[in-house]
């Protein structure tokens, strides 16, 4: 089996698995949409007030920073696995990558993005 054959099988299995799961839940779950069931669950009480409310922007900033530094780590792991022969090239690539991330870190630190105001 050539490489592409295995890839196709893999994709087919994934697709079948997902389609099967969806089909099962669609077939076996009886649907009974009532008014109360469609309301949000608030510990057994009627929901109070709008839930679309303007909250502080620092949560948004926090989320963005998480994405940046998380993806950065995600890239490092395969890099370390593939380049096992620790040649200079590997270190060069990694250091360039980390340096750019470091600049971002310093910028956010200077703009006090990390302080979380209560």
């Amino acid at each position, binding site marked *: 089996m050539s490489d592409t054959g295995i890839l196709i099988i893999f994709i087919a299995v994934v697709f079948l698995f997902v389609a099967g799961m969806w089909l099962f839940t669609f077939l076996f779950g009886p649907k009974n949409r009532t008014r109360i069931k469609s309301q949000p669950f608030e*510990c*057994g009480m009627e929901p*109070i007030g709008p839930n679309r409310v303007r*909250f502080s922007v620092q949560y948004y900033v926090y989320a963005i920073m998480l994405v940046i530094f998380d993806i950065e780590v995600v890239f490092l792991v395969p890099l370390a696995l593939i380049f096992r022969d620790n040649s200079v090239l590997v270190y060069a690539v990694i250091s360039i990558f980390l340096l750019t991330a470091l600049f971002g870190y310093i910028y956010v630190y200077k703009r*006090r993005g990390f302080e979380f*105001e209560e």
Partner: protein
Amino acid sequence: MSDLNERVQEITVNMGPSHPAMHGTIRLLITLVGEKVVRCDTQIGYLHRAFEKMSEANKWQAIFPYTDRLNYVSPLMNNVGYAQAVEKLIGIDIPERTKYIRVLLCELSRIADHLTCIAAASMELGAFTVFLYCMEGRDLIWDRIEELTGARVTPAYIRIGGLARDLPEGFLDRTLSILPRIEKVIGDVDALLTENPIFIERMRGTGVISQADAIEIGFTGPCLRSTGIKHDLRKKSPYLVYDRLEFDIPVGSNGDNYDRYMVRMEEMRQSIRIIRQVVRDMPGGKISIDNTMYILPPKEVVYNTIEGVVNHFKLIIDGIQVPAGEVYDATEAANGELGFYLVSDGGGKPVKCRVRSPSFALMQGLEKMVVGGSLADIIPTFGSINMIGGECDR
């Protein structure tokens, strides 16, 4: 960043009755700005089962099963508190052995109460292992209570003027044998939680209450001792045989959740110490007063003599004739001062049987402890108050 925060709107969150951390019976209407709590309207009453109305409809000795279900984590303490108040109203004195047995049962229930509080509080912070250890520890205690009284959670074992029955054979040695195992459970919980950085981060400095606020709101029990006030009714106004036992009162320093946790852990060790002393010098003798005006005559008298039958019948039908008057008697229950205010007009049923429950006063202070903190701090604060629905809503 501060200039970005003006136009933040408040959101009202409903931490309602059916919430895993709210023990099913408390509704907090919390107003948040971002994650900071601005207002917290505590609503109770979801487990109001009309204890007073039922006690006015029942006879004096028939109220014991209702007192079991006040603080259902340490039911024997409510029984002892109620029985002691009625005995004070009538003016009878119970034999020595009964006093020692009552203290033994109170301290066993106190350990079970603190174990349950720590189990629930730590489970809500994610430490499920501590929950399982504490449940195992509590089962050991409930085995002894079940062996003695027949029921695990609702014993109804204390009677006015004595006890339902005497200790079975070898009960005291079996009680002594479980103490090291409970100490091991407390040691495990201690090792798991006390120096755990996450636990300290969540508990230290959250839910703080000052001494002045604590006294004025009516805090009693571990929550008051955690603010640094050395107040315990077992020492301040000793009842039963607490004046003959030596134990000391653990006191916290800055009234936050961590201190409440440490006070409860230390109190469990003191209770074990008390139990050892009680078992060591437990006197012999009978367990009930023999004035059958107030207590049911023994079974052989009832079955063999006509007076016994009449006496038994009269007590059951008309209830114990408590002389007119009123009394307020407070005992140190697991959560604080449990007071019974009884008013009698000489009949078989109380005119009023009021329970001053510690959880009711503690819940008043929840707003003061929670406002200003973040939303996540409500869970450990509420957990460490150890509010019990039956006792708070009666």
